[in-house]
């Protein structure tokens, strides 16, 4: 595609952030900030959340300590032989809203997906000191290049809905909800 400019840039003023996000860093993030994530994160989508909450309901330990971590809402396509992962873009976040406050209550500090969150989740993020980020929906092939390793932590039988641990490098995201209670989608709509 010769009509493309050279290397796509997500934007100027990109903040390089290390995962998991330090509490001191969380406090500096503002809705609308463009960030580039490097480090370790965990993943989960519908069935992953249902199962995590069932474990909490039963008083059983979770397969991983989510305290301080970032949870990315993704269900990747299978990796071809020799590849780390298949396409791995974000899924729509609102479907996780019903589960998210419980995970924030046990120390989850950041979530990453696409689309707006419910009032309940926003209130819960505020009271638990957590942020919500969005990445580029429908860019699963491109985003897969930012994922350097991927291993199953739990729920292997759930296929794409398993809980994975991923190492990411330069993963692009936009801060949607910050610790001051701002929402970037709302800020755009008001403009």
């Amino acid at each position, binding site marked *: 595609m010769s009509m493309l400019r050279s290397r*796509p840039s997500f934007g100027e003023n990109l903040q390089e952030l290390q995962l998991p996000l330090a509490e001191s860093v969380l406090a500096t993030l503002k809705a609308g900030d463009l960030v580039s994530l490097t480090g370790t994160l965990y993943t989960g989508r519908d069935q992953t959340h249902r199962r995590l909450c069932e474990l909490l309901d039963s008083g059983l330990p979770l397969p991983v300590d989510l305290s301080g971590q970032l949870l990315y809402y993704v269900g990747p396509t299978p990796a071809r032989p020799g590849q780390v992962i298949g396409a791995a873009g974000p899924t729509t976040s609102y479907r996780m809203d019903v589960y998210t406050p419980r995970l924030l209550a046990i120390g989850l500090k950041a979530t990453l997906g696409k*689309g707006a969150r419910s009032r309940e989740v926003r209130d819960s993020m505020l009271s638990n000191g957590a942020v919500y980020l969005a990445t580029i929906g429908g860019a699963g092939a491109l985003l897969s290049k930012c994922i350097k390793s991927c291993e199953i932590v739990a729920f292997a039988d759930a296929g794409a809905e398993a809980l994975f641990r991923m190492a990411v490098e330069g993963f692009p995201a*936009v801060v949607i909800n910050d610790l001051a209670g701002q929402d970037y989608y709302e800020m*755009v709509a008001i403009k």
Partner: protein
Amino acid sequence: MRELNYSEIVAAVRDMAMRAAYDLEPDILEALLAARDRETALLSKNILEMLLVNADTASRDRIPLCQDTGIAVLFVELGQDVRIIGSLEEAIQEGIASGYEAGYLRKSVCDPLTRINTKTNTPAVIHLRVVAGDRLTMSLLPKGCGSENMSGLAMLPPSAGRSGVVQYVVDRVVAAGSNPCPPVVVGVGVGGTFEKAALLAKEALLRPLGTAHPRADAAALEEEILIAINARGQGVQGFGGNNTALAVHVELFPSHIASLPVAVNIQCHAHRYKKIVL
């Protein structure tokens, strides 16, 4: 009678399933390029550029454009002078299962109540029409559900009229926000009955981008809805700008005198479809 073999149909469907996941059609690529060139919001412009690189990466590396490789929807036109050797339904389902497995595509189909995955991405949703001629035409639309979930249908009173149709569609797309991965393609079905309107909205997505409805008043309706959606400024991924929708396609069908059904089927920018004539 022209004969078509089961295995020919399986192979054609399997091939379409894989190509749809990796290769965008030229019309959607052109629409994304045009959107990038006219976009004024910097972040949205940069993201449109990244979507073009994503398309390039997917096609080159044979990796799906999007991890949601969809539930397969097929519109099938069977010529009445074609005789299929074997079951058409089974051949299509086998082609989908085979393509999703061989293409490293995600199997996203599950039981609606137990949520247990069928592990084959089948059953596909098949809409069959018998038509004149001796050809079998199959259009595949693998539908991602981030966008599908944002669709809606209203049984408007006829008094709502044209402006009621515009308002319902615009409100539906605006309420969807960034959930369906804008820039979106909006399929609209107006008229018919409850199920006919929904089917028209989905069929509208199969029309090539950049082609208006042949009826002038319907084409004007498409234009009016598109302008109204983009004037709201939600933009690419909800990050602002004037490219919330790439196109609005309206399909019409006569309705009952008491009824004005309107259906909106939203499609994401990873607008994947393939068509084959056997």
